[in-house]
C-alpha cells in the first residue's frame, strides 16, 4: 500500500468511528488509534465551542456538543486553519434547532464577530475624507460611484432581537428570544481592533446588502425610491451615508469612470 493510500485509510478511520480497523491491527494498535480518534473529535468540538461560546451558553453544553459533533460528521474540516472548522454551523443549527430559529441567528453573529476580529486592517473613510473625495463630483457622478465597505463588514437578515439575547447570555441573565415586529438585519464590522454589531431595519439592510453585492450608489438610491418614495428616499440616502461614515464601515469610494 502506498503512503497516500495508507493516509487516506487512516483518515477515513479517524472520521468514521464505526469503520472496522485494518486487518492485522492488534488490540494495542486499536488502543493507540482510539487516542487519535478522541483527539480529533474533542479538539474540533472544543474549537467550535470557542467560536460559538454564546450559542453553547444559550442551548446548553450537552446540546451544543451534540450539535457540533453532528456538524463535524457532515462537514469534516478541509482547511489548514482551525478558524474555519465551524464554517456552516449556523446552517446546521437551523436544521437541528427547528423550533428555535434564533439559535441559527445567534450562531451567525458569533461566526461573523470572529471573522471581523482578524479581518484585514484598514482606515475607514470619515465624513471629512468623504467630503474631500467627492468635492469635485458633478451631480451625475453621484449615481455612478460605488462604496467599498471595510474588510470584515457583514450583514445577515434576522427575525429576532439577537443583540438583546447576546447581552443577556454575556451577563449570565435569563435569555429569552424576542421576535422582532418587522424583519431586520444584523450588521457586523470592526471598530479599530474591536468587532461590533448593531441591529438595523430592513430598509438599511437592503441598502447595505446592495452595496455589498457591488451595486452603485445610484442603484441603491433607486431601490430606496421604489421602497419608500422619492422624497423620503433622498433624505434616507443622505442619512444612511452619514451613519455609515460615522460607524466606519466605508473603506473608500470607487469614483465614476472617467468620460472621454
Amino acid at each position, binding site marked *: 500500500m502506498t*503512503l497516500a493510500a*495508507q*493516509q*487516506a485509510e487512516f483518515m477515513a478511520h479517524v472520521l468514521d468511528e464505526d469503520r472496522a480497523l485494518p486487518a492485522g491491527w492488534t488490540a494495542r*494498535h486499536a*488502543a493507540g488509534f482510539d487516542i487519535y480518534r478522541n483527539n480529533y473529535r474533542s479538539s474540533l468540538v472544543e474549537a467550535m465551542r470557542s467560536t460559538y461560546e454564546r450559542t453553547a451558553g444559550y442551548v446548553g453544553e450537552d446540546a451544543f456538543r451534540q450539535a457540533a459533533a453532528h456538524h463535524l460528521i457532515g462537514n469534516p*474540516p478541509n482547511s489548514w486553519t482551525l478558524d474555519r472548522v465551524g464554517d456552516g454551523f449556523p446552517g446546521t443549527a437551523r436544521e437541528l434547532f427547528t423550533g428555535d430559529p434564533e439559535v441559527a441567528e445567534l450562531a451567525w453573529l458569533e461566526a461573523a464577530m470572529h471573522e471581523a476580529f482578524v479581518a484585514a*486592517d484598514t482606515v475607514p473613510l470619515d465624513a471629512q475624507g468623504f467630503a474631500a473625495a467627492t468635492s469635485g463630483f458633478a451631480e451625475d457622478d453621484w449615481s455612478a460611484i460605488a462604496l467599498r465597505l471595510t474588510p470584515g463588514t457583514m450583514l445577515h437578515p434576522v427575525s429576532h432581537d439577537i443583540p438583546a439575547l447576546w447581552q443577556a447570555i454575556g451577563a449570565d441573565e435569563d435569555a429569552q428570544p424576542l421576535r422582532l415586529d418587522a424583519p431586520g438585519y444584523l450588521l457586523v464590522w470592526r471598530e479599530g481592533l474591536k468587532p461590533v454589531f448593531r441591529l438595523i431595519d430592513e430598509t438599511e439592510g437592503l441598502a447595505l446588502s446592495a452595496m455589498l453585492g457591488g451595486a452603485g450608489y445610484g442603484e441603491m438610491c433607486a431601490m430606496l425610491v421604489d421602497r419608500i418614495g422619492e422624497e423620503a428616499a433622498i433624505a434616507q440616502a443622505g442619512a444612511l451615508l452619514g451613519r455609515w461614515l460615522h460607524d466606519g464601515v466605508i473603506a473608500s469610494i470607487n469614483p465614476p469612470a472617467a468620460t472621454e
Partner: protein
Amino acid sequence: MSSITPFDGFGLGLRRTHYADFLEGEVPVDFIEVISENFMVEGGNPLRVLTQVREKMPVILHGVSMSIGSAHGLDEDYLRRLKALADRIEPLWVSDHLCWTRTSAHNSHDLLPLPYTEEALEVVCANIMNAQDTLGRAMLFENPSSYLAFPEDEMREWEFIAEMARRTGCYLLLDVNNIYVSAHNHGFDAREYLRALPHDRVRQIHLAGHTDGPIKIDTHDQPVCDGVWQLYDEAMELVGPVATMIERDDGIPPLPELLAELGQARELAASARGRIAA
C-alpha cells in the same frame, strides 16, 4: 540554504492569557514562541500583539499544520501565508512537526503518525525541500509523540530523523517529553534515542508535561515530570547551548509558575555546561 546559528536562551510560549504580561511588563525570558497559524491572519489584534512583542524580544514561529509528511504535498496557500508572516516578524526560525495532518480532502488538525519507511522518508524530504525553498530559510522539525507504531516500519524513529536532517539540511527541535512519552508507548530506550540523534542539528528543546496511563498522552497540561528533567539534563550535555522552552497549551498556570519551571531548566543547563567544561 542558509544555516541557523545556535541561540542560547530560555523562553516560553506566548498564550492569550499572558498577552498583557508580555505587552505591559518585562517578562524575564530570552525569547517567546508562538503558534504560527494563530497569526496567519489578515489583520486585527493578534498581529498587533505579536508585532509589539517582537519589538521587545526574539520570536520563534512554531507551526502545527504544515503536514510535512503528507503524501499529497504541501498546501501552497498555507506556505504563502507562513512566508508572509515570517517576512513580517523575522523570527529566530520557523518550525513544525514530523507528522501529517491532512489528506487532499480532509484536515484532522491532529499530529498524525508516519510509518518509518523509505517511501515516507522520501515524501518528507521532498516536502521539507519545498517548504525551505518557499520560505527562503532552513526550518526546524520536531520529533513527535505517538500512540501507535506501524507494522510497515523499516527503521527506528531516530534513524528516520537523522536521515531526514542529512538529506534536507533541516535542523531539529528536540521535544524531550515526546521522546519520554514515545519511549514508554513503544518500549524503546529514550537514552538510546537521544544519543543516536545528530546533535549538531539540534537548535531548540521543548519541555512539557503529559498525562500518564497505559499509553502516555502528550497533553501539555501538566508540569514537566522528573523523568523528563533527567532526560533534559542528559540532552543538554549532548547538544550544548541551544534554546530551551517550556511548552504549556492547556491548564495554563500563572506566569510565575512557568517562570519557576524555566528557572529549573536554566539550572540544569548550567550544570550540564559545567560538566562539559570539566
